[in-house]
């Protein structure tokens, strides 16, 4: 209350009081109180749509609250824009990146800084920060050639360059290897010990419990709990977050049947300057089997997915073989492969898996043709009905079949897209990052659907950067590193440490030989 609060060392670093933000359709934040002490790692936990992102944007000055008060180091402040937030010492790493595709890493970082530094100096600072924290990145690379994971590294480095007093991190670990997560946590703990406060948004409960000493749980725009996560269990945190525990996954023993997808010695030179060459990738997925590909993003996952889905049409000229049910599919486009029963869920939902400005019903037409009549006539009634059925079956929260894809939250759109491909009753389903940025409830549902599909005899290939997820649903694991694919290993023989090691490209070649001999 007093003017001397600024010098009061006991004042909280950040104190929010009664923050309310209304949007035309929703009350995103409803009288939220939150307090972060200096040098505290404070978790903000909640499902998608719980209001976490809005609240963080308010703290970062990107959104203006309708009501409520913000105090920073005891001083009441009005944070009008991100520049002002950064001037106060608040940095943020966004879940959705704010990077310009056509600029290089260094230029992107430079844009956010005051202009006292020259571009080469910025590049130098990026390099030193990058090596300090083990976040490998080349400052000269254009952003459009980066994978999602690499883009996030740029965002983290950009935030750290501001030497923040309060660092906001929105789901930062989803793209890191377990070892890199440990390393990041070391960095974050170091920051905390230096007195920097963290606001850490995540849905990974074990991470929150490993890193954070305080936690505010949000549900439906309201605070539903404040606790010390180290004293809570996953179950109790889940209850606060979604009001219930997610149902446990039904994992059944399955007997794999005949091979569905066989890739033998697939080599593809990179299609763009900073891509990854695929180097003699071999793998096999059998019916009723879930095979996972682990790896840090940017190691060839994108290229492999392009080649498998048919979006990269160069496969026939490249070395190697692509067989679906023994039939050579290398020369086929995505449509042809889909007709043979190969369906694919890409990692980018908006713009690739769905057209943002089209309705959900029309987005069905990207991969489904049940509602088409003669000569490709669209039966609009049947199409809307189909979309309605999908929305209902997969519990997608949407305004109906005519809702635009871009109006859905990430998790709901993902449910819709995964549902669209699963409902097509594929023989081979390839899913890239099935639960990236999806909340706990939706993630559990999507994993359950994938397993149910495998139970029904479908072959499933999952590419994910979340090891927990792969260990949860896969029967067999591969690791991709620098464009090469490791031999497969059964889940019960694998461990997080082993897979983490393989992620750096270190797997025993002898095992690989043995695997080939076997196959």
């Amino acid at each position, binding site marked *: 209350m007093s003017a001397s609060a600024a010098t009061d060392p006991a004042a909280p670093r950040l104190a929010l009081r009664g923050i309310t933000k209304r949007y035309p359709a929703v009350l995103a934040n409803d009288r939220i109180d939150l307090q972060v002490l200096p040098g505290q790692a404070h978790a903000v936990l909640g499902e998608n749509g719980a209001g976490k992102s809005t609240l963080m944007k308010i703290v970062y000055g990107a959104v203006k609250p309708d009501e409520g008060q913000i105090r920073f180091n005891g001083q009441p402040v009005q944070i009008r824009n991100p520049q002002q937030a950064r001037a106060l010492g608040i940095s943020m790493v966004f879940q959705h990146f704010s990077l310009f595709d056509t600029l290089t890493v260094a230029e992107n970082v430079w844009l956010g800084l005051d202009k006292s530094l020259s571009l080469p100096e910025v590049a130098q600072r990026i390099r030193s920060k990058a090596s300090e924290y083990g976040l490998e990145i080349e400052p000269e690379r254009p952003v459009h050639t980066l994978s999602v994971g690499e883009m996030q590294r740029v965002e983290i480095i950009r935030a750290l360059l501001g030497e923040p007093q309060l660092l906001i991190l929105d789901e930062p670990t989803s793209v890191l290897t377990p070892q890199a997560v440990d390393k990041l946590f070391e960095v974050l703990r170091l920051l905390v010990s230096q007195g920097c406060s963290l606001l850490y948004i995540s849905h990974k409960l074990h991470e929150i419990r490993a890193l954070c000493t305080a936690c505010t749980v949000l549900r439906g725009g309201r605070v539903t709990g404040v606790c010390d996560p180290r004293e809570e269990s996953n179950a109790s945190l889940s209850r606060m977050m979604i009001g219930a525990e997610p149902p446990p996954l039904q994992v059944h023993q399955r007997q794999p049947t005949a091979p569905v997808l066989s890739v033998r010695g697939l080599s593809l030179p990179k299609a763009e300057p900073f891509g990854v060459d695929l180097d003699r990738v071999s793998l096999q997925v059998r019916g009723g089997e879930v095979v996972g590909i682990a790896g840090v993003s940017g190691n060839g996952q994108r290229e492999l997915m392009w080649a498998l*889905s*048919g979006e990269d049409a160069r496969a026939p000229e490249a070395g190697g073989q692509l067989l679906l049910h023994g039939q050579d599919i290398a020369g086929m486009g995505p*449509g042809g492969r889909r007709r043979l029963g190969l369906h694919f869920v890409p990692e980018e939902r908006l713009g690739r898996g*769905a057209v943002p400005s089209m309705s959900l019903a029309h987005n069905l*037409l990207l*991969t489904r043709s049940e509602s*088409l009549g003669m000569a*490709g006539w*669209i039966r609009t009634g049947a199409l809307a009905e189909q979309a309605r059925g999908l929305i209902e079956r997969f519990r997608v929260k949407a305004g109906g079949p005519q809702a635009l894809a871009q109006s859905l939250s990430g998790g709901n759109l993902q449910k819709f897209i995964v549902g669209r491909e699963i409902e097509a009753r594929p023989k081979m389903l390839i899913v890239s990052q099935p639960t990236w940025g999806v909340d706990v409830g939706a993630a559990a549902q999507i994993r359950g659907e994938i397993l149910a599909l495998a139970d029904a005899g479908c072959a499933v290939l999952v590419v994910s950067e979340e090891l927990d997820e792969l260990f949860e649903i896969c029967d067999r694991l591969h690791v991709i590193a620098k464009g090469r694919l490791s031999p497969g290993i059964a889940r019960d023989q694998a461990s997080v440490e082993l897979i983490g090691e393989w992620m750096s490209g270190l797997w025993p070649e002898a095992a690989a030989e043995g695997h080939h001999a076997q196959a």
Partner: protein
Amino acid sequence: MLRLEPRPGASRLWTYASPLLAIALTVGLGVLIFLALDKDPVRALQMFFWEPLKSKYAIGELMVKATPLLLIALGLSLCFRSNVWNIGAEGQFVIGAVCAGGVALLAAKDTGGWIVPALLLAGVLGGMAWAGLTALLRDRFNANEILVSLMLVYVAIMVLTYMVHGPWKDPAGFNFPQSKTFESVTKIPRLMSGSRANIGVMLALAGAVVLWIYLFRTRAGFAQQVGGLAPAAARYAGFSSRRALWVALLVSGGTAGLAGALEVAGPIGQLTPYVPAGYGFAAIIVAFVGRLHPGGMVLSAILMSMFYIGGELAQSRMGLPRSITGVFQGLLLFCLLACDTLVAYRLRWMPKGGR
């Protein structure tokens, strides 16, 4: 400092009302221009908005001008929806006219009625071929279609000029650069007597219906638009971007060529250097004012046609300069873009100190 800030959601009402507001603003600005030119604004507006609707003949004339505008705009809207920027419809129109004219010149006094469909087909094929050049260069060499199609307009006009100065010049034409007048059998059948409007009106309206069906009721039309809205999604779905490019350019070239054929074998009746009347460029405005929607473009083609006729009347009866038509067209497009921008964004006054 003024800043544009995105609105949370565009108002549905204003999304549709924005063309109307743009027209109202155009009229308002037009009044100011007439006042500045010392002309009676009421009479001038009459020229634009009343005279073209006054009589059956006037309405016929309105349709004569609206037909090529609508036909070309239909094709262009398919291009623009597919993210293919064909700016050269004028050239495709001219080549369509040249090809149709070539066929019409073959006709003799005793030629049968088949000559009309034949010359229309020649016009369509000519326009398609001309647009196909753009498609080929884009497909094969990744050349920018905006530049290529625009530059080809001038080549097309040169082709026309060469033909009427050279091989096809009327021997009995006192050395004027024009072909002989086409035989009357080549005349496009008129809709009714006492008006120059011909069956082209029907073709254009049928084209609008076909385009609507294609865009909103067929998978091929859907695929075409996905390529424009989200190229990665089109690739994911397996829709060919090359196919979309060729379809868009061939269709728009074909409609522009058809418009050219209807024009030379209809109201003009011979090939002259004055065939290119700017319809190909005005149709771009028609397409956008009509929201790239077939129904909207029918209305905007009529509106644009009123501007053409009003401009001519204002010129002959009030002594206003010829460029007044262009000024009106430009004003309308400008106002529409401004209205659209303000539907999606709002202006915010940001005091300099706040930044």
